[in-house]
């Protein structure tokens, strides 16, 4: 898979996911899915697959169509075109009840009944799922999110972090094949966010597929096996490390004690440098054909030029850099 800026990237095939170490049939198959609201396109021609047990990050700016995509896969919204298979069942209105039996969605706002207690909220949802062992499931779910001691508290009196945990307990209770989590750590303090991360990792270990929508790119990088970046159209899908390598491949960062007098003229003399740019005086990002052969040439050239070289190394890029590079190409990070 190669990535070109401004060009949508085709999703990897199932086989590539398996090669990447994620085994089994896809939990989620999305093919050319599009949703329009009148003249407005929420998302268009979205295709990807998510393997069983995978933590899949779904990233994008506000208005990119992430929540609408999740609502579509959760059978709340009917797509304008395209197909999907959710937890092994083709997405259709007729299959809605069966699909919803196999998945759980936690919206950004957990949506709790404030006048009911934590347990009563969970009892209600357990009854809607038709669980006979509701109390066992409720207790297990509350234990998993460390809320057993707050079970009888009214939800209206809980802090945002605790409400988020109740929402998570509700999604855990149904023992879903796929969990859609929309901004699960939004508004949480670092400790509470860390607890959610630990929970997601433990769910991954149990083989639960997690579809994680988040604005926190550090969170996506830390938790997700693969990420997709959506900006109405799907911009890319891949492992964070692969995306970084493919988008920012063969880049050297050179730092000199004092800025070069005429960097343009100097870098033009070095055949191994394809492009260069400088974001701050004395620091240069050099795009080269091959890092290993180019680095010694560049150092020799700089020393010959009389420059005091402080460091030469491969550029470190984060998922945020990938995200910004792709979204910036679409125009200031906003969906059309």
């Amino acid at each position: 898979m190669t990535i070109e800026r401004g060009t949508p990237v085709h999703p990897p095939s199932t086989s590539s996911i398996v090669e990447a170490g994620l085994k089994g049939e896809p939990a989620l198959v999305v093919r050319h899915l599009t949703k329009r609201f009148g003249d407005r396109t929420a998302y268009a021609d979205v295709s990807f697959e998510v393997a069983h047990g995978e933590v899949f990050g779904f990233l994008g700016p506000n208005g990119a169509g992430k929540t609408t995509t999740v609502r579509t896969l959760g059978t709340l919204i009917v797509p304008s075109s395209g197909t999907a298979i959710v937890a092994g069942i083709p997405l259709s209105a007729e299959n809605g009840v069966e699909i919803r039996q196999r998945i759980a969605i936690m919206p950004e706002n957990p949506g709790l009944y404030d006048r009911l207690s934590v347990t009563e909220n969970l009892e209600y949802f357990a009854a809607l799922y038709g669980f006979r062992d509701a109390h066992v499931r409720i207790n297990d779910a509350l234990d998993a999110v460390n809320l057993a001691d707050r079970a009888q508290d009214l939800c209206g009196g809980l802090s945002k972090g605790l409400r988020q945990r109740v929402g998570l307990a509700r999604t855990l209770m149904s023992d879903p094949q796929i969990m859609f989590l929309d901004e699960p750590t939004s508004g949480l303090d670092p400790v509470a966010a860390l607890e959610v991360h630990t929970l997601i990792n433990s769910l991954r270990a149990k083989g639960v597929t997690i579809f994680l929508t988040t604005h926190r790119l550090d969170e996506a990088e830390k938790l997700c096996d693969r990420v997709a970046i959506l900006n109405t159209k799907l911009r890319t899908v891949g492992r964070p490390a692969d995306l970084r390598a493919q988008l920012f491949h063969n880049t050297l960062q050179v730092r000199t004690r004092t800025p070069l007098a005429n960097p343009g003229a100097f870098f033009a003399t070095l055949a191994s440098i394809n492009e260069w740019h400088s974001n701050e005086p004395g620091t240069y990002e050099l795009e080269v054909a091959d890092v290993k052969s180019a680095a010694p040439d560049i150092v020799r050239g700089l020393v010959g030029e009389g420059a005091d070289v402080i460091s030469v190394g491969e550029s470190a890029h984060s998922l945020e850099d990938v995200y910004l590079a792709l979204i910036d190409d679409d125009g200031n990070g906003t969906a059309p």
Partner: protein
Amino acid sequence: MNTFSSARLMAVIRKEMRDYRRKRSIVVTMLILPFMFLIEPVVAIFVVPASSGVSDPRNYVILPVLYLLLIPSIMPSTLAAFTVVGEREQGTLEPLLTTPISQQEFIAGKGAAVLIPTMALTYGVYGLFLLAVEVFAKSVVSSAIFGQGSLLVALILMAPLLASWSIAVGMAVSVRATEIRVAQQLGALASIPPVLLILILAVGVIHPTLAVALIFSIILLGVDVRAIRIVAKMMNRERLVTGSKPSR
């Protein structure tokens, strides 16, 4: 696989009842309103002139008795108007719709949760009224009320039908409304047709006989079925979540 689950229906009803009980303002409003409507009929039957001056006491008791039909017409509209927009405003609608609950179960559960307390209070107030008539009213008034089968049939048959109408309109408004206050105000308009109907009967444009009560009940049943079908069509998941008509 899309079968109607009575367990899910009961879950919705239980949760709604629990929610009502916890909100004191709902309970107080529910209790006060029917008893307000009880005052006028009770006063009216006690001021009926002595039998010596009354040519036909039935004419004096029709209006107060029909007045009681305002309870099932007006009482459920506020609660029904809250059903969808209330859940949407507090953010509970989307999590609810992501469960296996079907649209039919959702409508039936929400509707029944409004209908049950409405009918319990309506028939409770009817009972109190008839008890007051039996124990305290002049015998001529008492026999005029208990002797008019059409009035009692109208009270018993038309109450759930009028309530169902108000609930259906209230829920339809609730689907379309963007905020609770607007929904509750518009939902109150649902009681206008029943009030007009009661007025027509009360002022004698149509004389309330047993046959008239049955005909009106059948017509109301037809109107209710149609209204519920319209509400069922409106209760599309996409519309409920986005608040706008589904588009392809």
